[in-house]
């Protein structure tokens, strides 16, 4: 039997395929110093990089950009990702020459502007969260979690409490929570949810003993629900000597409305790329500052920004780096994602207390509005007033249409799908987070599309199974990708 090999159609060639020997997109001046001999025994034979003109590069990446969906292009109701609008002024501020062209190791006297910004942002995040101290070093939410878990571990060990090895994590948690605990060598114990979507108090109490490091709690949780027994949950963990870690992924529901520190969280990470509008960048960079209560302040990653010399009426204070005495150490090089911090600072400065409260209020209003519009058509398993997001089931009685089909069909209506198949405790989950930056008009258009898709599921299910139809590519063969593992279009053996 002979198999006919048909090569796949190429939408956009790779930069390697576009390369033409001898081209270059940039030229540099000739050296203005005498040339020195290169160490012959250390040189590489060839540098297999592509060769393109500037116009080739610009057109290539422009073509690629057209294949993307984005917040600038449309509605992105991706649950737990807080895909809010990214204000343009933030981008300009991060590119001010005074910020862009400063080296992280400059003497502190020459970077007082950057340090003042970081100090003020630390103070603002403390005020917003009710935590006593903040480090801006962690690079992303998961990195903040790792930092927080290391702080919890160090705190117990410092008190000579070496028995604590168990981290309690609700079944609705993001995967990063157990993964962060696993990296620190802790044993993860899953706590189930009760019928109203809260932490199951009895199950929690049964696990709370002298081996508990703490509880990692996302509140509101990934069902978009505020735990109705939050105070009791926190008290239960504290009573057995554990600490309570707050995953700040869903802080957009609470900002300006409630401070996690006030109700007893010991640690909280912030996702500046969610709550504070810094862009997701197609997968990063994020920024995951960590706030802690007073009894954990000495453990924060080092360094953080402090006042080295108090100011006077005429003289600004001198900002510098301070090293918390019992610090868990450094979690990344230099001082955090400074460019992201500038964007978050700009955002908070333009909101103030009332603006931030309006953010949470409208995020919650928008989510409940969508919930109200969809609840008669889509089954919502924990259907009560939600916070910034809610989870519906993407399946219908007597139909083989699944959440995946609904998600793909939404693309034909020019919407980004919701997060699907998460949280794991809901079958065929569709997790919908509209954020506050969407108008009623957009929400209505999305709800109309969802209702129409439900109708299509009944009348033309094949339309959904084969969706999307109007996107640059159709459903992709994920099995082939994992089996063939073509991860690179250049291989050393081609040399």
């Amino acid at each position: 039997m002979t198999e006919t090999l048909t090569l796949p159609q190429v939408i956009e060639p790779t930069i390697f395929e576009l390369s033409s020997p001898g081209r270059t997109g940039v030229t540099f001046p000739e050296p203005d110093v005498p040339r020195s001999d290169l160490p012959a025994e250390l040189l590489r034979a060839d540098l297999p990089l592509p060769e393109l003109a500037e116009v080739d590069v610009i057109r290539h990446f422009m073509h690629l950009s057209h294949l993307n969906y984005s917040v600038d292009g449309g509605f992105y109701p991706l649950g737990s990702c807080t895909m809010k609008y990214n204000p343009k002024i933030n981008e300009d501020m991060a590119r001010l020459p005074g910020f862009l062209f400063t080296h992280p190791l400059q003497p502190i006297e020459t970077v007082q502007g950057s340090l003042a910004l970081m100090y003020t942002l630390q103070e603002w995040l403390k005020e917003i969260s009710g935590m006593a101290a903040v480090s801006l070093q962690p690079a992303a939410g998961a990195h903040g979690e790792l930092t927080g878990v290391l702080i919890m571990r160090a705190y117990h060990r410092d008190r000579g409490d070496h028995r604590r090895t168990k981290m309690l994590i609700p079944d609705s948690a993001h995967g990063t929570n157990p993964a962060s605990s696993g990296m620190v060598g802790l044993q993860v114990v899953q706590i189930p949810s009760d019928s109203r979507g809260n932490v199951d108090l009895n199950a929690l109490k049964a696990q709370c003993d002298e081996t508990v490091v703490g509880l990692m709690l996302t509140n509101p949780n990934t069902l978009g629900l505020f735990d109705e027994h939050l105070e009791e949950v926190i008290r239960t963990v504290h009573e057995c000597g554990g600490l309570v870690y707050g995953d700040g992924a869903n802080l957009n529901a609470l900002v300006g409305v409630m401070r996690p520190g006030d109700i007893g969280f010991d640690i909280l990470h912030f996702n500046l790329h969610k709550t504070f509008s810094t862009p997701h960048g197609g997968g990063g960079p994020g920024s995951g500052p960590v706030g802690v209560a007073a009894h954990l302040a000495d453990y924060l990653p080092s360094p953080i920004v402090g006042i080295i010399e108090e100011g006077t009426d005429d003289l600004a204070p001198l900002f510098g780096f301070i090293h918390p005495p019992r610090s868990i150490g450094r979690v990344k090089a230099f001082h955090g994602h400074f460019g992201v911090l500038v964007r978050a600072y700009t955002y908070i400065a333009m909101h103030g207390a009332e603006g931030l409260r309006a953010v949470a209020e409208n995020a919650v209003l928008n989510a409940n509005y969508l919930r109200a519009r969809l609840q008669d058509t889509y089954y919502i398993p924990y259907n009560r007033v939600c916070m910034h997001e809610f989870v519906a089931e993407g399946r219908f009685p007597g139909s083989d249409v699944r959440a995946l089909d609904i998600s793909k069909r939404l693309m034909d209506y020019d919407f980004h799908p919701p997060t699907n198949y998460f949280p794991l405790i809901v079958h065929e989950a569709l997790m919908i987070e509209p954020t506050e930056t969407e108008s009623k008009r957009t929400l209505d258009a999305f709800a109309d599309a969802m209702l129409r898709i439900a109708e299509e599921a009944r009348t033309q299910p094949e339309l959904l199974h084969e969706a999307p139809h109007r996107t640059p590519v159709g459903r992709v063969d994920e099995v082939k990708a994992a089996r063939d593992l073509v991860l690179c279009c250049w291989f050393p053996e081609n040399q």
Partner: protein
Amino acid sequence: MTYIPNTPREQAEMLATIGVSSIEELFQDIPPRYRYPKLNLPPALSEMEAAAELKELAENNENVRDHLISFLGAGAYFHYIPAAVDHILRRGEFYTAYTPYQPEISQGTLQAIFEYQSLMCALTGMEVSNASHYDGATAVAEAVNMAYAVFRGKRTRIVISPSVHPQYRAVVRTYVQGMGLELVGDESEANALQSPFEIESLIDPNTALVIVQYPDFLGRLYDYTSLVQIAHAQGALVCIAANPTALALFKTPGEMGADIVVGEAQPLGIPLSFGGPYLGYFTTRKQYVHKMAGRLVGETVDQRGQRAYVLTLTAREQHIKRERATSNICTNQGLMALAAAVYLSLLGKQGLRQVAELCYHKAHYAAQRLSQIPGFSLAYREPFFHEFAIRLPRPFEEVQHHLLEHDILGGYHLGADYPSLKDHLLIAVTEMNTREEIDYFCEVLQEVSHD
């Protein structure tokens, strides 16, 4: 101001649809005594006021483009970034997109990452690259994590050269706190100038990973082939943290036999930006791909027979495997990886080599001029790329003060991390430094040498 489009009338309509009478009713689950705290934040600024405030803050910095002549490197380098790079990064289609979990509407990001992976493989001589880590330091820490997983925790020794970036070593120490690993090789801060090959004697059958840097933190270039062979003879893996600009000219870590090549890719088109966001790159051999952390893009086809790209081997990752994942990493440095891909595409084979050669020639010119100043001497005789160490005739603080008075950032004080290198300065020279700047630097240092 805020970015909320809904008007009070629309809000009222929405509340009616929900069936509640006020927004506050939606927050009933929050215990009343915690609800609506008074936040002590400054009053909200308009966009023009915010722009003025930020401009003032930025102008309170002295920057290396407009105010200071900089010879500061030590892990972050001032290079020229072609204008086209930022024009691509500012495309909303790229920077306001999420992680490409939905391949049908994310082919732009996916193909760009695939190309980034390919470019990093080409540069390092390795077979697979992931989609990025937070920075060079965390990429090294993830190499430890991977080696730990490769040996299923059965090998517990990590051997690390003292001439790996001090902050990278610090981050590795933080990451391994709960893993039960023993970190050896860099305790002897007394002898930082020792050859990195000295750590060979520490490699034993319990060693999971050996970590060296290329060029090392002091700027020295070594061919690590023999070290790799010794490590492999003990069954250990080798991680080389490499400067990507140097790889335009010098033998690749892949050729030396390294198992993991990581590093800080900030020099590839990413601004200094006071330390971040930067780009940790991570490459390895295909045989270890299942143990590698981070996202990975693979080529495949779609149902219409078109070539397409998709995130693959996701079963390694936290959202599937939870506590058994290879790492907790989720958000990475997507946009910075795009910057590196655009930068490398623009410069290409010729441009990147030209940059590396400019760095090399200017650094060697500077080293030669500086070592002629009475009292100043090069700290070592090994080959170097664009960074080198000199011994100062006077205390560092005094020299730094004098240089700053002349608006010069002289370099990094090695004594801060290596007590034995008190009054040693680590000097970086790139294509951004003109001959005039180097000559001026030498003149000003000359003044220090005669009192």
